[in-house]
């Protein structure tokens, strides 16, 4: 076995892989939540649809996206391998459950991760897969009068099946035609069961990252009395509070809109 393979196969090496993929997924969350805040723009999905179109047609983003899918799979797979190995290390369990003060999330990373994995499969199936493969997904045409800044929206039916998007300007009116992912989002989030599932999944994200973010730094060996409190602060407030709350607010807000009959 090569030196490199031996390193990655050691108990510490497997944890290194968990830490690096985990932190990469954390940085992705920041970008994902930032972009999706466009859902709160009350513009009939104009900015959100343009953003979704940009993500799927900009080559560097596509490369990073495949790196991201790989990270999710590797993180889940290694989590599974480590769990099996850890269970094997204690074949006979205690009659009295351990009462030491370890945080609940640190003891349930596998459970939280499984909920998140199920969520990712459903979430990507509903939006990512449909966006790429669903031929019935509609298009929208946004006509912006450049003089007044007013935008008019209408449904658009492409002339051929290969059409993906177009931007043109005629008579001082900018015409943007894009796939209407926003309608799909609004449709999905009008289902109460779906909204509840999203909120629970975001709870799992919160507790997973409450432990996971700082634990990754420990695994990498980056612990110091100067910056470890900063890592804890970011892990708690940004990754376990602000980001999950912002994500959870999206389905809740759209469900609220659907009950108001605004869509």
């Amino acid at each position: 076995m090569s030196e490199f393979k031996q390193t990655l196969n050691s108990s510490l090496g497997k944890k290194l892989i968990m830490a690096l993929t985990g932190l990469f997924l954390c940085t992705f969350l920041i970008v994902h939540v930032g972009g999706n805040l466009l859902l709160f723009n009350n513009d009939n999905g104009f900015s959100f649809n343009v953003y979704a179109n940009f993500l799927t047609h900009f080559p560097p983003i596509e490369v990073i996206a495949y790196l991201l899918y790989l990270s999710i799979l590797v993180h889940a797979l290694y989590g599974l391998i480590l769990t099996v190995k850890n269970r094997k290390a204690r074949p006979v369990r205690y009659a009295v459950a351990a009462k030491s003060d370890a945080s609940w999330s640190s003891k349930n990373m596998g459970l939280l991760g499984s909920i998140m994995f199920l969520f990712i499969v459903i979430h990507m199936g509903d939006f990512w897969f449909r966006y790429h493969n669903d031929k019935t997904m509609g298009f929208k045409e946004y006509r912006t009068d450049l003089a007044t800044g007013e935008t008019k929206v209408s449904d658009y039916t492409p002339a051929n099946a290969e059409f993906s998007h177009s931007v043109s300007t005629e008579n001082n009116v900018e015409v943007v035609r894009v796939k209407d992912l926003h309608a799909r989002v609004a449709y999905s989030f009008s289902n109460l069961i779906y909204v509840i599932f999203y909120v629970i999944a975001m709870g799992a994200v919160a507790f997973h990252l409450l432990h996971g973010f700082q634990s990754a730094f420990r695994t990498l060996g980056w612990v110091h009395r100067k910056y470890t409190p900063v890592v804890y602060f970011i892990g708690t407030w940004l990754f376990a509070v602000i980001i999950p709350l912002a994500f959870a607010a999206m389905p809740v807000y759209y469900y609220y809109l659907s009950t108001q009959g605004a869509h």
Partner: protein
Amino acid sequence: MSNGNMNLTLKVWRQKNAQTSGKFVSYKAENISPDMSFLEMLDVVNESLTHKGDEPINFDHDCREGICGMCSLYINGHPHGPKRGITTCQLHMRTFHDGETITIEPWRAEAFPIVKDLAVDRSAFDRIQQAGGYVSVNTGGVPDGNAIPIPKVIADEAFNSATCIGCGACVAACKNASAMLFVSAKITQLGLLPQGQPERYRRVQSMVAQMDEEGFGSCTNTGACEAECPKEIKLTNIARMNNDYFSAKLFREDEVHEQGH
């Protein structure tokens, strides 16, 4: 008038040897003084078992003053009992109340096979130590004690890590039966000091390799080990070990491990 002594029920794991399966057996511990240590209480119970012609409960013990690392026992869900920062021999019966049922189990880990009853074989720790937990010293003249200056903070940190008595409570407390707190304390104790530098990166690789070989689990950074360690060894040691291990494996040209070629 009551003399303040207690009557307790013990649920003790009895197992003949590693090959046979074990089970819990209940015993009455009567007229126990609150001033007894937990091990003295077990001595009293064993005394009465012997008088009755029963096999006494087998448990590990040696110095009975909290420094040898020999005593173990997983008491009511805690290695070394419910109090912090002490070993089982330093645990007094006043911690418990009259009429209480106390469950006593051995350390549970694949790497710590049961010898008999509550005694487990912790020689896995010895083998990890032998893999690199030392400083090689060639013979020669006696060096002057203060010839090598060491900053106070570093000396203190190294000493804190050196207080590990190798009892295995960290393994017993960890949900993954990981030995990382023990191994990292041994690595840190030597790795922080100038005398430990020449073998620093070889040491971390050999000891981690032996740790994996013994079948201990991985670290999830839950901190259960730190909470249960009778010597209050800090979780920071594990991060230090990881740092040394990864720099040895990924960045250091001069310390390529001999194994694996």
